[in-house]
């Protein structure tokens, strides 16, 4: 088996995995993540449609090869390599301080540029394929050169928003003035970059069956963090009471 055959076999395997994953989503029905059919809130970062199957079937990805565990349906890594803190335990930064501070957090807190080296945290977690180019020094825009937001390799739903922010140069301290423990930054801070709310509402004006950024329940239901979670997958808060199948970043 030459390298190209192996490459294609891996790609087929990957496609089968993705197809099964998508089938599982469809079978699970509308309460699971439905296929995207509507424009979504972008926060200026990403938006659009994902058609993994179609695009991957079209050809061989030049950089990733046939193997990309994240796009293959893997959950976000919950535990960083080396027994470090999980994304859910940022509330206890002192844990890190005892064992040497996390480089991204360190850079963020000190105001230096984040290192953006995935392997510095995820070494051994296989979040990237072996053939993925080194990420050190990459920005989110660099990621998007290949992972086009509307394209087949979109990272939407695959990368937590906290990572999107960090890779865009928005470090922890930009949102969490007090990082130990970090407090909920509040909607006003989000809107300082992504707002005003009316602008966001205009972007989602055509979302069916109703505009998620124009709730009749008023400002208490327009708090960003009700839906757009940074350190865990986002939630459709409206679906608590309504049959609104929004897809959201």
């Amino acid at each position, binding site marked *: 088996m030459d390298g190209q055959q192996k490459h294609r076999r891996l790609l087929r395997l990957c496609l089968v995995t993705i197809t099964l994953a998508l089938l599982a989503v469809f079978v699970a029905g509308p309460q699971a993540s439905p296929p995207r059919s509507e424009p979504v809130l972008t926060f200026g970062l990403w938006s659009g449609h994902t058609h993994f199957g179609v695009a991957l079937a079209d050809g061989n990805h030049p950089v990733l090869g046939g193997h990309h565990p994240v796009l293959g349906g893997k959950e976000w890594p919950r535990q960083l390599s080396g027994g470090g803190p999980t994304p859910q335990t940022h509330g206890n930064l002192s844990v890190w301080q005892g064992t040497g501070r996390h480089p991204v957090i360190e850079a963020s807190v000190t105001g230096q540029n984040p290192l953006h080296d995935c392997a510095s945290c995820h070494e051994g977690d296989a979040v990237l394929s072996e053939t993925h180019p080194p990420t050190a020094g990459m920005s989110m825009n660099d990621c998007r050169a290949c992972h086009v937001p509307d394209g087949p390799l979109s990272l939407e739903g695959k990368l937590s928003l906290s990572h999107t922010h960090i890779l865009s140069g928005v470090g922890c301290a930009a949102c969490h003035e007090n990082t130990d423990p970090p407090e909920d930054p509040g909607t006003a801070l989000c809107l300082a970059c992504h707002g005003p709310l009316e602008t966001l509402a205009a972007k989602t004006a055509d979302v069916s*069956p*109703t505009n998620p950024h124009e709730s*009749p*329940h008023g400002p*208490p239901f327009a708090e960003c963090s009700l839906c757009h979670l940074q350190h865990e997958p986002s939630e459709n808060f409206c679906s*608590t*009471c*309504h*049959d609104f199948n929004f897809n959201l970043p």
Partner: protein
Amino acid sequence: MAKGESSKTGPKLTRRQMLRTGALAGASLTLAGPATAAVREMPESWDEEVDVVVIGTGFSGLAAAFEAAKAGADVALLEKMRTPGGNSIINGGYLSVAGSPRQAEQGIEDSSELLLQDMLKAGQGLNHVELARTVAEQSASTLTWTIDEVGVEYGGMTQLGGHAVPRSYTTAAGSGSGIVVPLLERLGELGVTPRTGTLLKHLIRDDDGRVKGVMVHDRYRFPDEASGTPKTIMARKAVILATGGFGNDVAFRQLQDPRLTEDLDTTNQPGATGEAIREALRIGCVNVQPSWIQLGPWGSPDERGFGVAPYFVIGVSALNGLMVDTQTGKRFVNELADRKTRSDAIIATGNKAIVFCDAPGLAKAAESPSVKLDRLFETEVLTEYATLQDMAAAHDIPLEALQATIDDFNAAVDAGEDLEFGRYMPDDQLKTGEAPFYAVRVAPKIHHTMGGLGINADAQALDLASNAPIPGLYAAGEVTGGVHGASRLGSCAIADCLVFGRIAGRNAAAEPNWA
């Protein structure tokens, strides 16, 4: 005992305390019962001390917090959910007012006595009259307060089921958010911000009988009862329970009315559960009429929860249309009867009922800013039919009977009186029958729990053992029972919640500091 431990281990009572409690409550020396269960040891130290703890951020809690803070009290305003407002922020936004400026403008004669009589009639005489009277008598001053002090903007005033005259103000927002949001703003100006994600775990009642504080779970995540961190808050003056009803608590509501199974939909938000009432009962509050649970007659089986159907049923068809049994094509109840009468009647048809109006009826309703017709048409709840035949065919209604029903109603409009069902007929009542037609299927949904904690007209919670007020504990709104008796009239909930919330807040702030 260290702070917070009590939640895990339950009350640890000495025999001496049990004896004292029993003596205090006038109970026998048995070891069971609410009197002995009531006492929870005082924490050795409190994590926080305030004057007044308000639990719940619906109409009652916000009104109570506003009045307490305005009177100078240091207020902790607690909310278990991630958003403030409870059912209030998603409610329909109708406020019942007897003797209002708009009634005067329209030449409608009304009085608090007339409103009280309507409440007692719908409540089948089970209302605690002094409480109902308090709501009726203070409805007009409460309206003034919402406008002058809170900054609420109103749209129109309309006629709701069970009311003898039009008296229900509608918020310009078309929702209770039109009151909740400005109240939150005013509270913010007073330095009071709701602490969301804070669950009441225990009311702390000392063996002198007084409620002296609460144990909560901070950073609670609904519905995980174990989530969050235990924290004690001392209430130097009082605790105010404004935790709402239990319409969405399947187990607790079925204890009260076994027919209300999980199959029945509800208009309530998911947090409308009974744990706060259970805790209040545990410390010795009394449960009043808990089996009277209201089903809203304007729900639709074609959508979840409150939805948009009520806008059509209340704002359009009840005024300018008819409700018919699809099996007979006939009206079967006064479309403007109280909720219980209508819900019972719809259920008796086997939920085979539609409400409808014709083209002029819809056009007239559209004049009201509070009727959200655009939302109705965006959903599939409301259907337009080009002809009466089409509507009859779609719902399998006998056409001739349906036409006869329309003819009979139009004759009643001409006569100025609905002899068949006694429906309120204003001078400008429209006839019906001009295509196209607009229809919604209806099926009652669990909406309001009339029963709850016993209170007096000062909003003091009553003690099961003595029927006397429990020192340091107030309650207001849907968590209480007695105001509405067997059935609450539409638009009387906001009046009840705001009136008793304000009373509770004022009285709590005026309590002596026990510490």
